[in-house]
């Protein structure tokens, strides 16, 4: 999580994978997308971390400082904050980094839990914050961001969890010794069962599904990642970041423990040598195709964009800039 949206709603910038040289131009202006800056009411800072369009046309926006706002009329004149109507729906959350409308409720991932949020008395403000699942390790290390959720085709929630940067922090009162599933993607069944799925992630902040319900995430260049990838998350895959591997020895792990990772070889060679190693669906050339890829969505509706045909069969790619 290198970059947050500084204000307003995210601008959509098209990244045309089939035409990488045109990326710089595309970010500046592109007929394929429209940038709509919203003029916010005084005192409202929308550091958007997640968006969810409600069935009635309202737009919910989670912000990293712990709130969810609802724009009552997102289609109204964006320069008229009153016409758009900004309502504080939920507060007191711990760094929600993602938002999903599902089955009559908003779902977000806080640092330590997947939370289902509802307004049960109809006054427009949330009054129920139910913990759907928790149980991944949180030590207090700053880097322990958690993202999501998204829904796969079977109705399971998916969440991605950063690797801790450095060792766990033992805060006063800290008594939980384990900090499992850091650097993993986990799924949560509709009845709340948490299952580890993929290992080897570093800072997997852009999680989304394609139209077929396959789950993907972006990750961030840094140790064990020479550049930013887009990863096809699935059960048992190991993507290369080593810090997640101790948990592969746990009985719940679907990832086979590959043992000590080889050093000084290319990633492609490693993918041949290391059992269970999964290559990214896409490598983004560093800087040329973005420095910190965050959220994205797959769509086949933008006719003016060149569709990407890959083995994952998803459509055009958009990046939140």
């Amino acid at each position, binding site marked *: 999580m290198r970059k947050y949206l500084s204000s307003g709603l995210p601008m959509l910038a098209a990244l045309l994978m089939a035409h990488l040289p045109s990326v710089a131009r595309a970010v500046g202006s592109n007929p394929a997308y429209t940038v709509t800056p919203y003029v916010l009411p005084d005192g409202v800072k929308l550091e958007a971390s997640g968006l969810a369009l409600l069935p009635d046309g309202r737009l919910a926006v989670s912000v*990293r*400082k712990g709130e969810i706002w609802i724009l009552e009329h997102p289609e109204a004149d964006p320069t008229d904050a009153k016409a758009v109507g900004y309502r504080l729906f939920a507060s*007191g959350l*711990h*760094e929600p980094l993602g938002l999903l409308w599902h089955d009559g409720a908003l779902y977000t991932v806080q640092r*330590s*839990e997947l*939370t*289902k949020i509802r307004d*049960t008395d109809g006054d427009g403000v*949330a*009054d*129920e*914050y*139910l*913990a759907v699942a*928790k149980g991944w390790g*949180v030590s*207090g290390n*700053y*880097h322990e961001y958690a993202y999501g959720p998204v829904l796969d085709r079977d109705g399971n929630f998916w969440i991605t969890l950063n690797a801790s940067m450095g060792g766990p922090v033992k*805060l*006063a*009162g*800290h*008594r*939980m010794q384990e900090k499992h599933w850091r650097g993993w993607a986990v799924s949560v069944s509709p009845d709340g069962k948490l299952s580890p799925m993929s290992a080897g992630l570093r800072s997997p902040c852009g999680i989304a599904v394609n139209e077929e319900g396959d789950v993907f995430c972006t990750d961030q260049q840094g140790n064990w990642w020479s550049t930013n990838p887009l990863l096809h998350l699935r059960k048992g895959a190991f993507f290369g970041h080593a810090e997640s591997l101790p948990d592969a020895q746990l009985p719940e792990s679907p990832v086979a423990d590959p043992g000590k990772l080889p050093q000084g070889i290319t990633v492609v060679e490693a993918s041949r040598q290391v059992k269970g190693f999964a290559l990214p669906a896409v490598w983004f050339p560093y800087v040329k195709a973005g420095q910190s890829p965050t959220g994205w969505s797959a769509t086949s509706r933008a006719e003016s964009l060149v569709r990407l045909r890959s083995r994952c069969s998803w459509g055009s790619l958009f990046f939140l800039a």
Partner: protein
Amino acid sequence: MQAVTVGSPKGVHAAFDALEMHWAVVWKGRFIDAMTTWEERAMTPAKPLGTLGPVLPPRMPLARLKSASDGWPEAVGEAAGYHYSGYRLDKDGTPIFLYEVGGLKVEDSMSSAPKGDGLLRKIKITGASDAVAEGWYYLGLGKAAQPESVSLTKGMVEFEEYIKF
């Protein structure tokens, strides 16, 4: 600890540990300064401002005992068989924490005492039948607290404790 802090305009506050599922800290005066959780990457923990109240024992409120004179179990959180369900806000915005243990559903809240000189802890226990609570005991937070039998009437019982400070 995964603290959920509950502030009151009357200046008495409490933090619930959503990981171990018991109340952790009470204090009065200023609430907290959350700046450290987003100012820099280091993200040092937010500390209670103001004056700390009595130290709360890090133990669960309900346990199954052979008799009231048994030692209170040391296990906490999920290791003690508890399951955290989240919280609901009541009409004035006070969170009511929800958790379950041994077939009992618990609603646990702290709100400012009427005179503002401490906190009123309310705990409501429900079960599918009165028999579910057989063998279960409740233990309050105060130093002088003694285990009390949890006996449900029509599937429900409530306990209250006044934490003065």
